[in-house]
């Protein structure tokens, strides 16, 4: 029951998606998975490892996550076509690369909540601070 992107949603579908989440996102995710399966073995292994990391620590949920996985597939398809060695793709520090990659997309909800809480707490603390002018004297 795949739906095309241009098909206007029926009421039933709108209701269904309240329960299942966006079917369009699911379709795009399945497509992404199929693209990864087509990769030569070493690229597939590396792409799946990157996906696992992103699922656990990255922006796995919410809008933008699907776009991130599609970009990931673009990168690996291109690298496979160019014959870029895996080490050249990831560099010396795979974590650093994956974090830089993930930083381009909306954070998973709990991560941004945790960050925002820190930002506002520091802001509050700074506001409460007495006599913060004239630090130099």
């Amino acid at each position, binding site marked *: 029951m795949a739906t095309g992107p241009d098909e206007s949603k029926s009421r039933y579908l709108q209701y269904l998606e309240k329960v299942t989440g966006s079917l369009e996102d699911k379709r795009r995710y399945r497509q992404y998975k199929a693209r990864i399966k087509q990769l030569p073995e070493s690229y597939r292994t590396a792409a799946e490892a990157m996906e696992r990391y992103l699922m656990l620590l990255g922006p796995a949920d919410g809008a933008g996550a699907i776009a991130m996985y599609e970009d990931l597939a673009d990168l690996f398809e291109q*690298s496979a076509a160019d014959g870029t060695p895996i080490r*050249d793709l990831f*560099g010396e520090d795979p974590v650093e690369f994956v974090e830089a990659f993930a930083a*381009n997309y909306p954070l998973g909800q709990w991560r941004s909540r945790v960050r925002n809480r820190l930002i506002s707490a520091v802001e509050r603390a700074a506001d409460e601070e007495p006599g913060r002018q004239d630090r130099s004297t």
Partner: protein
Amino acid sequence: MGKQATEMLKGTLEGIVLAILSGRPAYGYEITAWLRDQGFSDIAEGTIYALLVRVEQRGLVDVEKVPSEKGPPRKVYSLNAQGREYLEEFWRTWSFLAERLERLREGGK
């Protein structure tokens, strides 16, 4: 390339990539190859890719998909007006930094 050079490069990589693109449009692999030729051998292809995604999202570059003989179409990036403005600011910042550091070095002699 040493670790220190890699660390220093990080902060300026965005400006470097935009400067490359100001000369002519390019796709990710060309940029990485150029950097390698210039002696930046530790630069990961993926790092450049993530950076290109970022400058695209910030509207500094235009992207065109160009078919390639082998594999999927390539995304070719070119600097747009907003990117040019950003690049000018990058060079101003760079001049400031380079001048201050040079002064610091001379003061230390």
